[in-house]
């Protein structure tokens, strides 16, 4: 469905140091630097997959999504989305996809969201009966009924994002590109948006490509991740496998019915990551988890126990650190 080969997107960026003299010099002589936002990445995505793009700010995630949705022309490489070359922006292609940008809005600022929905109905040539049905379904899922008649400028950020999602989905696209859809939202609104995307995808199928630096977004929605750093692809595979590869350890979280000393925990094996009187966290090798759990239950006043993977932020951070060390080592040879 989506095929990307040797994709590159380079920008020429004007650079100058701060200060009056530098500003004057830049009038007569400009210095440009080529920035490789995306620097030769390859991947394939099958129909119906849910894939998360992970990476720090400036990694190239959003640029990749912009190329895939036809907004930005690649410098070189081959891109095919559902058999279309995105840069051509054919009508059939545009009706197949949608792109939600968390930091940009398509809602008309001075008018109620219902006007944007109607505008999209007309431009996407959606039959009125289908439009009414889709709108009913989406407004129910997002509990939006009271909002669509208020001017967009009076809505909160979270309410606007919900309406953005409706505007982006009125034409029932088969491919969803979501770029930081939960950015700036409070925790409850993040959960609401995530739940909506998940339920919408389960109900309607389709391919989902989600770019986010919020690990929870990706962990909850996408079984597969593509990790990009400095424009290069550093991992493409299952999220679980990435976690296992980078951090094979597990975390055993113990809650106690009465206070426990740290040296009692140390006897169980593994490393004490956190300890206070009521709760402790142990980092344990995967193969030692059963033994540690059995010992904890036998020796300590355990009231509750969970076994978790390490936080995704730490896993990704470690992956980037490893990649950078590798690059530095290669560069110094």
């Amino acid at each position, binding site marked *: 469905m989506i095929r990307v080969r040797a994709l590159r997107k380079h*920008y020429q960026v004007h650079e100058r140091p701060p200060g009056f003299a530098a500003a004057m010099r830049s009038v007569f002589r400009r210095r440009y630097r080529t920035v490789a936002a995306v620097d030769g990445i390859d991947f394939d995505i099958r129909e119906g997959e849910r894939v998360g793009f992970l990476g720090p700010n400036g990694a190239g995630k*959003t640029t990749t999504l*912009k190329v895939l*949705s*036809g*907004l*930005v*022309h690649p410098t070189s490489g081959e891109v095919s989305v559902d058999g279309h070359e995105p840069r051509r*922006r054919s*009508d059939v292609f*545009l*009706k197949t*996809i*949608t*792109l939600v*940008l*968390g*930091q*940009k*809005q*398509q809602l*008309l600022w*001075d*008018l109620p969201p219902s*006007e944007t929905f*109607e*505008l*999209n*109905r*007309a*431009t*996407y*040539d959606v039959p009125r009966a289908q439009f009414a049905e889709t709108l009913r379904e989406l407004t129910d899922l997002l509990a939006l009924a009271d909002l669509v008649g208020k*001017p967009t400028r009076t809505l909160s950020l979270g309410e606007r994002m919900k309406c953005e999602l409706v505007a982006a989905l009125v034409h029932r696209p088969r491919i969803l590109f979501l*770029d*930081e859809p939960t950015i700036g939202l409070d925790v409850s609104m993040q959960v609401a948006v995530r739940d909506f995307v998940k339920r919408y995808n389960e109900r309607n199928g389709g391919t989902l490509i989600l770019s986010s630096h919020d690990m929870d977004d990706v962990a909850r929605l996408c079984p597969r991740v593509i990790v990009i750093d400095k424009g290069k692809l550093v991992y493409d595979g299952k999220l679980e496998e990435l976690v296992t590869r980078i951090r094979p350890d597990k975390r055993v979280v113990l809650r106690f019915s009465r206070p426990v000393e740290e040296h009692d925990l140390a006897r169980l094996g593994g490393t004490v990551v956190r300890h206070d009187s009521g709760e402790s966290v142990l980092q344990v090798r995967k193969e030692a988890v059963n033994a540690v759990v059995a010992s904890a239950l036998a020796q300590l006043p355990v009231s509750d126990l969970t076994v978790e993977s390490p936080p995704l932020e730490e896993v990704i951070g470690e992956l980037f650190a490893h990649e950078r060390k590798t690059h530095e080592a290669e560069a110094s040879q």
Partner: protein
Amino acid sequence: MSLRNTARAFPTLLRVGFADAVAYRAEMLVWVLATTMPLVMLALWTSVARDAPVGRYGQSQFVAYFLSTFVVRQLTGSWAFWDMNFEIRNGTLAMRLLRPIHPLWGYAAAGLAALPMRLFVSLPIAVVALAVVGARNVTHDPLLWILWAMSIGGAWTLTLLVNLLVGCAAFFVESSVKLMDAWLVLFFVLSGYLVPIDLFPRWLESLADWLPFRFQLGLSVELMTGVHGRGEAVALLARQWVWVAIALGATTVGWRRGLERFAAYGG
């Protein structure tokens, strides 16, 4: 988007555009006040012509000319450049590009959608103009009125295309505001907006004949006030539409080349 689908979507674009244009009543009033430059010029030139005519213009001819200028400007003005320049700079053009309708149709629809409001302002002025200067200062030839209507269409299209073309420059130079400022300076001088073109020195009048600015405004005013006979009017109208064709070609090339450079900055 195919032309058929665009035609189907266009009424909705116009309706939504009209709703957007009338969203702020106070802003609308300020906008009306900001378009009164021809009325200022009217006061200035009628004062100059109090003792003796200037060229072929006596006081009533100046009143007819500048009231016509006000009406034509209301009917043919465009601000697409400002929207386009802003949207290219901050990347929100991306949201237009995602819709299966050419973004340039969207800018055109926004301009057309504001016409009812502009008519609301300009029609009473036109009626007052007729009452004040008398019917003798506007043409009585029905064919010239038909040509006038065509020239209004040409002037509107040319002004929109110029706005879009200068807007396309923002793809290449990040901001094309100064370019638009330069265009507007030339427009104000060479279109007949501030001074009737036939009051220019001969060489400048000849130059204005071959530049596009006059066809954005002056030609329609001249047709309305009966300056030209039928033959000359048809020739000038043909020249106007040649400029429309040139502007359309340049805008198409500028848009295509510009999109290749679009970075959709900001998120």
